[in-house]
């Protein structure tokens, strides 16, 4: 059985919090450049240029891409042969968040009791942690800070099985239309279809971890992704909502079997500051 010390986890999480907030992934940058070339709206092109310039400034000046450094979402893939030693796994991750947000000059955006006090916790804790137990003796940690503006545009639809494929497409397209300029387009549309209500939402968020521009490995799902992307980019919302062809850089769909009565569809929108970094211990 492999042992992993909680200090290692804290250090890794702290580093990933900073790196994810400073450096936009090459996949996102490539997609932004490609859409910049294809965009016909002059304002749209200008906005995309500024988003690319912003990424350069953040990288060179070592500062966050966006002032909203997010709620810290952490996905763990924990090998079943790993033994975590010297402390509490979840607490070691929260410590990493506290450390990373302080040392990296990242904004602390978490507040306590949501419906009343709403006092800032001043260290961006607690993170939201999703743990999956997998075979093997490794621990994969993915840190994915999520901004409030795009997260607020999430939608869950408990569709009827009779609504079918077209029902899924329409629900996603209407969710994007309703979101309009709010989630900082160009966006990446995360979609979860199937499972239960919470499983569908997990799938939608998890799909955002995939590289932008990479299709689903399931040809039928890949075809659905392409069709939704085309439909979404026909709306005309464009970069930052000022009109144009670039509303979404990608649509990612993940599916799971579901109950005979159900067809849950979850939409989790990601802004262009699509941040996530990972490490394997």
């Amino acid at each position, binding site marked *: 059985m492999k042992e992993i010390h909680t200090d290692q986890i804290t250090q890794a999480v702290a580093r990933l919090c900073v790196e994810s907030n400073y450096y936009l992934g090459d996949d996102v940058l490539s997609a932004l450049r490609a859409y910049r070339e294809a965009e016909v709206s002059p304002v749209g092109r200008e906005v995309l240029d500024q988003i690319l310039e912003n990424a350069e400034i953040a990288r060179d000046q070592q500062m966050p891409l966006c*002032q909203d450094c997010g709620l810290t979402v952490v996905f763990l893939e924990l090998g079943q042969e790993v033994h975590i030693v010297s402390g509490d796994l979840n607490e070691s991750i929260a410590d990493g968040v506290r450390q990373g947000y302080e040392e990296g000059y990242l904004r602390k955006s978490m507040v306590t009791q949501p419906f009343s006090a709403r006092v800032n916790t001043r260290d961006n804790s607690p993170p939201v942690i999703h743990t999956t137990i997998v075979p093997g003796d490794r621990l994969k940690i993915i840190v994915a800070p999520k901004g409030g503006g795009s997260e607020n545009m999430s939608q869950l639809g408990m569709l009827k099985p009779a609504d079918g494929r077209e029902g899924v497409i329409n629900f996603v397209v209407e969710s994007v239309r309703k979101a309009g300029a709010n989630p900082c387009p160009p966006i990446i549309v995360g979609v979860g279809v199937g499972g239960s209500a919470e499983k569908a939402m997990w799938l939608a968020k998890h799909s955002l971890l995939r590289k932008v521009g990479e299709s689903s490995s399931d040809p039928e799902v890949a075809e659905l992704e392409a069709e939704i992307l085309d439909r979404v980019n026909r709306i005309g919302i464009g970069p930052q909502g000022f009109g144009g062809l670039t509303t979404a850089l990608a649509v990612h769909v993940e599916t799971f079997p579901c109950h005979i009565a159900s067809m849950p569809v979850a939409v989790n929108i990601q802004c262009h500051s699509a941040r996530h970094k990972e490490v394997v211990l």
Partner: protein
Amino acid sequence: MNLTTPLTDEVIEQLRAGDKVSITGVIYVGRDAAHKRLVAALDAGEPLPFEPQGQIIYYMGPAPAKPGDPIGSAGPTTSYRMDSYAPRLMEAGLKGMIGKGNRSMPVREAMQRHKAVYFGAIGGAGALIAKSVKKAEVIAYDDLGAEALRRLEVIDFPAIVVNDVYGGDAYEDGLQRYNRER
């Protein structure tokens, strides 16, 4: 078009949805929790921490400044969350709002009634926008952390007019122009 704060009605009347502007001068920064307190102060008949007449409020909560910098990343937050507060502040003399995303009809009507404009800044370009901020200070509600009320001095702050005083809306214009669904 270059704008200098405070804004006058004459200048505001010249602005049209879609115009690119470059703002120089003092602007105030407040978002959700600060708006709640500003409107509570107005309701209680108390003075605001700043004189709103002719001023601009920027919906933003900055990242912490590194040593030697005036501010950290400083892009706009989504504006609709301030919709229930905005008309009260326009009544009190506020002339401009900077944020991102769509406003409600009551807010757009209040802009026409009180001669105020809504500017869109580029969401997620916080590092770029920070370059136009020369000075920043917390003037009230320090306990709110990132949500404290701030006073900024900006030079050539880049924005686009989203809603003008004639009912124009740059987002609606953009949709009309680029929609390809039919």
